[in-house]
C-alpha cells in the first residue's frame, strides 16, 4: 500500500458519519419555486440543481475525485422520500448502533425549512396512506417488511456501456428516441417525450458536475507547491473534462467515469443497494492491457488507482434508516458488491490479470465497503479460488463466493438471453441480476416462522391477540401433518396476497411521482422505450420477496411431524401450552424437541424434505405473480439482519427456540442444530432448488485452526467446488473463534477493527446489536477433528 493510500484509508476509517442537510435544502428550495412541470422534468431539474450547486469536495492526495456530500461520510437525506422528524434526527444522533451525528444547525434547518415544506408530501406518507388496514396489521405484526417505505427501488448494477459511450453519446441516443416519437399513433408519446427530455437534462447535469471538479482541481493546482501533486491535479482536471462527457480512454478515466455515475445515482435518490460497477475486472481489463502494452500504466499504478477507488465507496455510508427499515438493515454498509471472475459473454473463462489485481486490493484494503465477491465458474482455474480462500482465511468475511454457472442458469430460467445472463452476476447480498439491463427490486422480507405461528393459532397473532390471518382450522383438530401444511399454505397465501397488492401500489407511486431519469440513462432499454427505470423501462423487471427463517420453520414442522404425528409423544395441545409458556416449566419438552428431532442441516432427508416442502409452498405462492412493470415476482432466500427483527416479534417455536430470539439466517441451519459438520450442512442446503430463486445465502463458520495449513485451505476450496457441483448458489465464511467474539463483546475497545461476516456483507462486530452479536456467536463453529 502506498503512503497516499494509507493516509486516505485512515482518513476514511476515522471519518464520523454525519447528516449533511445540503441536498435536502437544495431539493426543498427547488420544489418551493418549481413551476408547472411534468414529474420527470421536475425530477431532472432537481438533479440539475444539486449538480450545479452542491459543494465540491476534493480531498488531499486523492486520485479518484468526488464525494456525494460536502465531505467523506457526510450523508445526504432524501426528504421527498422520507422526511426525518426531529425525533428521528435525535434518535440518529444518539442511538448506540449506526449513529449519524446531527449538528444543531442541521436540526434547525429541518425544523424551520425542510419539515414544514415536506410534511404530508413525502412518498413514505403516501405509501402508508395507501396501504389497507390488513396490510398495516401484517406489517406491524412483523409478517413482512417493506423496502420502499424510506428508500427508492434501485437494486440494479451497471454493465459495460459507460466504457464504450460518453454522456454525449447517450444524449445522441436520447435525441434519436425523441425524434422517433409517434405523436399520431402512440398515446404515450407525450409521456415518453417528458421522460426523454428529463434524461437529457440529467446527462448534461452530470457533465456539469465533472466540469466543476475539473475547475476545482485546476484551482488547487494553481496553489499547489508540490510539483508532483500539481501535475496530478492537472491530470485530474483533464480527466474530469473528458469523462463522463466522452467514453474513457484509459484505466484512470474508466474508474473516474464510473465514480461520477455512481455519485449521480446515489444523489438522484436513495435507491436500495447502492449502485455498483458489477463485473469490474471484465470492464477494466481492456484499459489495463492497453495501458501496460503502450507503457502508459504500470501494475502498481493500476493498483493504487483501484485502492483510491475503493476508499470512495467507504466514504459513502448507506442513507440513514429509521424504524423497521433500520432493524432489517442495521449497517452503514450500502451493499455495493464488486464481482470478480465468472464468465465472459462468449462463455469463456473470465479470470484475467485485473481479477487478481482486484483480489489483491480487497486483501490490502480490508474495508467493509465496497463489498466483494468472486463469481466462481467450473471454467475458472483453481488458482483463482485458492487466492480468494487465502483472503477468506484472514477472517473478515470477504470475499463471498458465488456459483457463476448457477447464476447463469438462474437468469436463463427467468428468460434472459445467454449473453445477458453471462454478463450478469450478483449484487446486494446475494441477488442475481442481468447487469445493466434489469430492475430486480427486493420488496421486503417475509417471516416464514411467524406465518407458521399464526397458523398454529388459527389466524391469531399470539403476541397481540389480534386476528390478522384467516381461519385455517384449530390445529388440535388436525389429524395429519398434511392438514397442518395445508393450513400453513392458506395462511401464507393470505399474507402474500396482502404483500403483493401493497407492492403493486407502491410500485405505481414510484412510477408516477418519483421517476429516476438519471438512472434510466444507464439501464437498457429505458432510452429506447422512452420509459423510466421505475416504470418498467428496464429490459427485465423482477420483484423479489425474500423468505426468512427457513431453518427455524423446517425444524418446527419437523418437531411436530415427528413428535405429534409420527411418534405421538406429544399432543398438539401440550406443545401449544408449552409454547404459550415460552417453555417455562417445560424444559424437558424443550430438550425433547431440541435434541430428539431430525433437524435441517444434518443431511437427514426427514428434515430436509420438510425444508423442500416449505420452499415449494413459498415458491408456488410467489413465483410468477405479475408486477405492474411487465415483469413478475420471484423469491430470494436471504435475511440481511432481518432474522433478528423477525425473531423479536415471534414467540417460542416448536423447534425449541425461545420467544423473541433470532430466527435462523439465510438458508443456514438453526444456530447449533447442525451437528454433522460442514459437508452435511452443504448437502442439506443443496437439496433446495437454488435455480428457481434469485439468490440464497449460506453462512459457514470455521475456526482459524481448520484453515491454518495449505491442506486446510485446499479442503475449503474443495468444499466450495463440491457445493457448487450440487447446485448451491452462494456460500460465505466467518473464520473466527466464538471465544474471540465473546472477548470482543466484553472489551469492544480492543476490537474496534474486528470485521465479521453478517449476512451478505461484512461489518464491524462492535457496530452490531448485542442480539446480532450473540446470534453470530451461536452459529455452529466447524472445528478441526
Amino acid at each position: 500500500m502506498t503512503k497516499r493510500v494509507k493516509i486516505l484509508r485512515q482518513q476514511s476509517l476515522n471519518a464520523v458519519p454525519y447528516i449533511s442537510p445540503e441536498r435536502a435544502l437544495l431539493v426543498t428550495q427547488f420544489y418551493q419555486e418549481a413551476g408547472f412541470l411534468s414529474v420527470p422534468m421536475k425530477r431532472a431539474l432537481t438533479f440539475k440543481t444539486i449538480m450545479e450547486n452542491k459543494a465540491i469536495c476534493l480531498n488531499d492526495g486523492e486520485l479518484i475525485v468526488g464525494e456525494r456530500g460536502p465531505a467523506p461520510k457526510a450523508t445526504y437525506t432524501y426528504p421527498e422520500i422520507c422526511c426525518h422528524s426531529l425525533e428521528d434526527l435525535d434518535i440518529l444522533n444518539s442511538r448506540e448502533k449506526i449513529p449519524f451525528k446531527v449538528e444543531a444547525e442541521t436540526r434547525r434547518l429541518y425544523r424551520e425549512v425542510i419539515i414544514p415544506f415536506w410534511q404530508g408530501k413525502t412518498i413514505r406518507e403516501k405509501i402508508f396512506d395507501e396501504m389497507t388496514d390488513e396490510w398495516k396489521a401484517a406489517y406491524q405484526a412483523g409478517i413482512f417488511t417493506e423496502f420502499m417505505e424510506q428508500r427508492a427501488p434501485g437494486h440494479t448494477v451497471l454493465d459495460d456501456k459507460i466504457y464504450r459511450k460518453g454522456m454525449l453519446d447517450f444524449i445522441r441516443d436520447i435525441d434519436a428516441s425523441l425524434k422517433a416519437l409517434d405523436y399520431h399513433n402512440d398515446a404515450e408519446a407525450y409521456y415518453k417525450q417528458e421522460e426523454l427530455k428529463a434524461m437529457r437534462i440529467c446527462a448534461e447535469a452530470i457533465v456539469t458536475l465533472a466540469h466543476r471538479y475539473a475547475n476545482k482541481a485546476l484551482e488547487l493546482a494553481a496553489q499547489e507547491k508540490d510539483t508532483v501533486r500539481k501535475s496530478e491535479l492537472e491530470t485530474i482536471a483533464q480527466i474530469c473534462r473528458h469523462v463522463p462527457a466522452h467514453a474513457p480512454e484509459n484505466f484512470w478515466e474508466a474508474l473516474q467515469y464510473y465514480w461520477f455515475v455512481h455519485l449521480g445515482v446515489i444523489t438522484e435518490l436513495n435507491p436500495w443497494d447502492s449502485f455498483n460497477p458489477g463485473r469490474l475486472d471484465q470492464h477494466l481489463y481492456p484499459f489495463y492491457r492497453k495501458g501496460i502494452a503502450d507503457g502508459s500504466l504500470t501494475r502498481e499504478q493500476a493498483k493504487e488507482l483501484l485502492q483510491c477507488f475503493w476508499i470512495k465507496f467507504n466514504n459513502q455510508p448507506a442513507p440513514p434508516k429509521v424504524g423497521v427499515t433500520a432493524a432489517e438493515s442495521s449497517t452503514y454498509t450500502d451493499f455495493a458488491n464488486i464481482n470478480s471472475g465468472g464468465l465472459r459473454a462468449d462463455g469463456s473463462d473470465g479470470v484475467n490479470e485485473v481479477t487478481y489485481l482486484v483480489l489483491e486490493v480487497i486483501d490490502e484494503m480490508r474495508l467493509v465497503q465496497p463489498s466483494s465477491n468472486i463469481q466462481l465458474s467450473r471454467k475458472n482455474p483453481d488458482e483463482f479460488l485458492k487466492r480468494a480462500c487465502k483472503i477468506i482465511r484472514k477472517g473478515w468475511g470477504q470475499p463471498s463466493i458465488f456459483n457463476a454457472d448457477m447464476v447463469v442458469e438462474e437468469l436463463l430460467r427467468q428468460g434472459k438471453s445467454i449473453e445477458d445472463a453471462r454478463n450478469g452476476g450478483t449484487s446486494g447480498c446475494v441477488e442475481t441480476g442481468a447487469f445493466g439491463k434489469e430492475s430486480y427490486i427486493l420488496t421486503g422480507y417475509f417471516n416464514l416462522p411467524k406465518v407458521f405461528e399464526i397458523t398454529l393459532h388459527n389466524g391469531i397473532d399470539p403476541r397481540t391477540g389480534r386476528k390478522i390471518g384467516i381461519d385455517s382450522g384449530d390445529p388440535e383438530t388436525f389429524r395429519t401433518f398434511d392438514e397442518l401444511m395445508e393450513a400453513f399454505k392458506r395462511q401464507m397465501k393470505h399474507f402474500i396476497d396482502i404483500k403483493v397488492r401493497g407492492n403493486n401500489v407502491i410500485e405505481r407511486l414510484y412510477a408516477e411521482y418519483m421517476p429516476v431519469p438519471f438512472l434510466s440513462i444507464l439501464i437498457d432499454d429505458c432510452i429506447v422505450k422512452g420509459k423510466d427505470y421505475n416504470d418498467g423501462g428496464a429490459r427485465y423487471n423482477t420483484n423479489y420477496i425474500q423468505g426468512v427463517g427457513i431453518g427455524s420453520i423446517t425444524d418446527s414442522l419437523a418437531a411436530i411431524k415427528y413428535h405429534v404425528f409420527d411418534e405421538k409423544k406429544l399432543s398438539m395441545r401440550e406443545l401449544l401450552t408449552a409454547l404459550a409458556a415460552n417453555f417455562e416449566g417445560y424444559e424437558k419438552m424443550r430438550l425433547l424437541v431440541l435434541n430428539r428431532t431430525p433437524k435441517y442441516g444434518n443431511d437427514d432427508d426427514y428434515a430436509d424434505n420438510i425444508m423442500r416442502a416449505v420452499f415449494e409452498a413459498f415458491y408456488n405462492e410467489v413465483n410468477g405473480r405479475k408486477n405492474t412493470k411487465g415483469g413478475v415476482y420471484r423469491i430470494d432466500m436471504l435475511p440481511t439482519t432481518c432474522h433478528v427483527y423477525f425473531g423479536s416479534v415471534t414467540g417460542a417455536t416448536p423447534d425449541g427456540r425461545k420467544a423473541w430470539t433470532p430466527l435462523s439466517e439465510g438458508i443456514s441451519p438453526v444456530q447449533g442444530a447442525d451437528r454433522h459438520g460442514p459437508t452435511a450442512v452443504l448437502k442439506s442446503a443443496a437439496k433446495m432448488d437454488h435455480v428457481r430463486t434469485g439468490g440464497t445465502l449460506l453462512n459457514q463458520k470455521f475456526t482459524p485452526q481448520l484453515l491454518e495449513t495449505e491442506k486446510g485451505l485446499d479442503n475449503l476450496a474443495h468444499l466450495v467446488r463440491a457445493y457448487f457441483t450440487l447446485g448451491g448458489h452462494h456460500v460465505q465464511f466467518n473464520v473466527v473463534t466464538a471465544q474471540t467474539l465473546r472477548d470482543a463483546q466484553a472489551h469492544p475497545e480492543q476490537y474496534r477493527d474486528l470485521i465479521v461476516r453478517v449476512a451478505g456483507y461484512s461489518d464491524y462486530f462492535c457496530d452490531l446489536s448485542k442480539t446480532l452479536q450473540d446470534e453470530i456467536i451461536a452459529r455452529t463453529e466447524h472445528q478441526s477433528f
Partner: protein
Amino acid sequence: MKGMIFNIMRYAVHDGPGIRTTVFFKGCPLRCQWCHNPESIIRHQEIIFREERCLRCGDCFSVCRNGAIRREDGRFVYVRENCIQCGNCIEVCYAEAREMAGREMTTEEVMAEISKDVVFFDQSGGGVTFSGGEPLLQHEFLLSLLQSCKQKGIHTAVDTSGYVSPEILGQISPCVDLFLYDIKILDEARHRQFTGVPNRLVLDNLRRLSQWQKNVIVRLPLIPGVNDDQENIRQTGSFVASLGNIDEIHILPYHHTGLEKYRRLGLAYPLPEVAPPSPESLDRIVNELKRFVKTVVLGG
C-alpha cells in the same frame, strides 16, 4: 454383516488425503496409556455420562431396573458395575447427559453414511478412513466395508496399530489404498510397558506391507517423556528408512482432550500428568526425522 462402531465423523481432514469420512471401530488390543479415545478401547457398548448436562430430573433413575443409578443427595450417581447397557436411561434423557458409546451397525448402514459425502471425496481426492480402536479387530466386517467401497470406487484408508495376525493383514490389504500405520516405541520393553503389548508383530507387519508395495504413511503419536527421546526418534526414523519404500511420517502431538472422556466413562486416566510437546521440541523432532524420510508432517 454387523460390526460395533462408536462414531462416524464427516469432514475428517486429518486422516489421509482430501475430505474424508472416518469410521471409528470399537475395540482395541492395545492399552496405550495416552489413548485419547477411551471409548474405543472396549469391544462392547458403554454408557457415557456428562454430569454437567444433567438436569437431575431423575427420569433415568425411575427407568433403571438394575440399580445402576443411585440417588445421592439430589445427584444421580451411575453405578457402572450394575449396568447391563439396556439403554433405557438414555431413551429418557432428553438433556443428552447420558449417551451410548458404540452402536451395532450393518455394512449397509455404514455404507449409507459413507456414501453421503462421495461428491466431496470426488472433488478433493478424499475417501473413507477406517479407524478405531483397531479396525482389524473386526476384520470380517472391515473387509465387507472395504469391498463395498472398492465397488463404489471410494478411496480407502485404514488407520491401524498393526497388532494383528499377518494372515488377516494379508486378507484385507488388497482392498486398502492407504495404510495409516502407528509406530509408537521401538524399544520392546517400553512398548510393552506403555501399550500393554510387545512391538515385534507391529514392526514385522509394517515390513510386510512394505514388501507388498502398499501405500503407507507412518504415524507417530508423540508423547513427551514416553517416546520423544532422541533415541526413540532416531530408531523410528532409521527403521522406516530401512524399509526403502515408505517416505512419509506424520507426527501426532499429544493433547489433553481425552481427559474429559475418561471422566465421562468413569475411568482413571492411566498416564501421569504430561504437558503437550513444546513447539521447539516438535521442531527438533521433525528435523531429526527428516534425516531419514522425505516427508515429515505435523498433524495428520
